[in-house]
């Protein structure tokens, strides 16, 4: 039956694409996003770690943008363009991984809390609620400060503080899916917990999960840059650490606006792209979900 399944999937994807294409903002976001991800992925083909090395900074210090250096140079004469390019790898990686951590925990807990009745669900909900109210930036700062600000801890700190929102969302969605008659029908057909969660709940929360992931990545990138700026992260070059450096080296007071603007605008563009994309996804997917429930 694979041909049927395939045809169906193609059809679904096609329809999805049709409606997504109508969301202009989302489409713009997607384009920016793909460009950024592609650039980050191909970066090693053109440049390597050495662009972030102070020893190899060749240009003049704080050289304003010019033909040679389209985005100017930093305090060590390194090319901002190349640094931003290379730094996008760290920023995006942290964004994606932290979102992944958050989403995976959030999904498992959310579905479990929604699906399981009785005390297990209640306990999970209680834990989620507890984590939910923890002020996430503050908690992430504490975790990073205590565990040291390595890339791994930063990812964990962001992931661990942001999953509850996803869990809540997924739980709500799970509950509403579970209230649908087709779950009852599936149960009447003899389906067990596993069957119901994987065949019905998961596919129905997945779109939301996708949208939520997109927004989560955006927020993780911002959080990472904030942590870097507040100096609790000891990451390799990322947009956040670049901004921190621009600040440390007085780019603002020395009039090196490009040093502040470029990484900041990169964050802004990518985060905005993710946000637009996520919202568009939600807008496209949610009516479908809603229609399904109405």
């Amino acid at each position, binding site marked *: 039956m694979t041909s049927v399944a395939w045809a169906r999937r193609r059809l679904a994807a096609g329809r999805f694409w049709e409606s997504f294409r109508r969301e202009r903002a989302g489409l713009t976001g997607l384009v920016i996003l793909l460009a950024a991800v592609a650039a980050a992925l191909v970066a090693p083909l053109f440049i390597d770690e050495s662009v972030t090395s102070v020893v190899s900074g060749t240009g003049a210090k704080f050289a304003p943008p010019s033909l040679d250096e389209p985005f100017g140079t930093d305090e060590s004469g390194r090319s901002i363009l190349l640094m931003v390019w290379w730094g996008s790898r760290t920023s995006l990686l942290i964004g994606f991984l932290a979102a992944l951590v958050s989403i995976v925990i959030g999904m498992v807990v959310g579905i479990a809390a929604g699906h399981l009745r009785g005390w297990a669900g209640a306990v999970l909900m209680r834990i989620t609620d507890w984590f939910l109210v*923890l002020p*996430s930036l503050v908690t992430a700062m504490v975790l990073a400060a205590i565990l040291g600000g390595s890339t791994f801890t930063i990812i964990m700190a962001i992931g661990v503080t942001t999953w509850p*929102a996803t869990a809540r969302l997924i739980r709500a969605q799970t509950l509403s899916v579970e209230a649908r008659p087709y779950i009852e029908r599936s149960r009447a057909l003899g389906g067990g917990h596993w069957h119901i969660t994987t065949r019905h709940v998961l596919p129905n929360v997945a779109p939301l999960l996708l949208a939520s992931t997109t927004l989560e990545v955006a927020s993780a990138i911002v959080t990472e840059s904030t942590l870097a700026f507040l100096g609790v992260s000891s990451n390799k070059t990322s947009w956040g650490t670049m901004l921190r450096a621009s600040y440390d080296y007085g780019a603002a007071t020395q009039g090196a606006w490009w040093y502040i603007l470029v990484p900041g605008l990169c964050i802004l563009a990518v985060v905005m792209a993710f946000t637009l994309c996520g919202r568009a996804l939600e807008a496209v997917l949610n009516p479908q979900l809603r229609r399904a429930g109405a």
Partner: protein
Amino acid sequence: MTTPLESAEPAVAQAAGSSGSTGEDRPAGRGTLRYVASKAGGAVLSIAMVIVGTFFVFRLLPGDPVRNLAQGRRMTPEQLDLERRRLGLDKPMLEQFFDFVGQTLRFDLGTSYEYKRPVLDLIGERIGATLLLTGTGLVIAVSLGIWQGTRAGWRHGSRFDRVSTGVSLLLWSVPTFWLGLLLMMTFGVGIGPIPGILPFRGIESVDAPDGFGYLLDVAAHMALPCLTLVAVVYAQYLLVMRSSLLEEVSQDYVNVARAKGLRDDEVRRRHAVPNALLPTVTLVFMRIGFIVGGAVTVEYIFTWPGLGQLFYEAIKVPDFTLMQGTFMLITMSVIIMNTLADVVYHVLDPRVRSA
């Protein structure tokens, strides 16, 4: 920013769904009391979890806490011993735990090593500034967000809607600190033709005048930090208000209201907006933690003498008792705010009240 923007669904949606009760008016008072009690119980449990969690997380610290505190300054062994005894580190873990819990329950958050003073005193000295900043910021952000959200949602798809949603999303995507820096550079220091007219340090001038002048002075000092805070947080209120208004607008009762001959703005004012406000109001409380996070950054940039700055300093030094104390206090107040949100919702929404 931590949560998907518009997911402001408080647990109410489900509660409201189970309507259709036919019973007579049950004594609502008792139900509310029970509800409040259960919520308070939940909050107490959460706070207990915070206390326990904090104890263990802070025990994860590598190295000898006392030496950590000394930060490499030379201390005689006697001094170290004394410090250790003072912090109770010579006792077994379990005893330390009970001591810690006991102290916390007595509002004794320990003594800051850096400031050599009770953490609670330090917090007390700074909480006012933070409340002023976040309070003002919140009020402005909420009113602005709700106002714009209402307009945008009511005229869904209009230019106002597109522009305000776009702008708020843009601001939402901006890292707080970056925006703060830009604002500081632009309006504080001045760039090109823009003179730096606004102060960007602290809460008041060193030689602040008295009386009304003082208020003005503080207001001027608050302008930039507040603007930053508002710019970053108001988007969520706008978007939530907008989407919950959209939700309400598609409800039949809005159509009924129109059919009754109400003017467009009456329909909005009397029916749609009050109902759409419910989730937004809850969100205001629920996202207090978010504001607090923003406050840390903003206070750092604008030298605002508040809790956020204290916390940041605690992290930088690092002063673990101070960090632990501020963290617990911030978290607990956020928990309490959330509980309040639940209760407020409960009071505001009759559907939940008797559910």
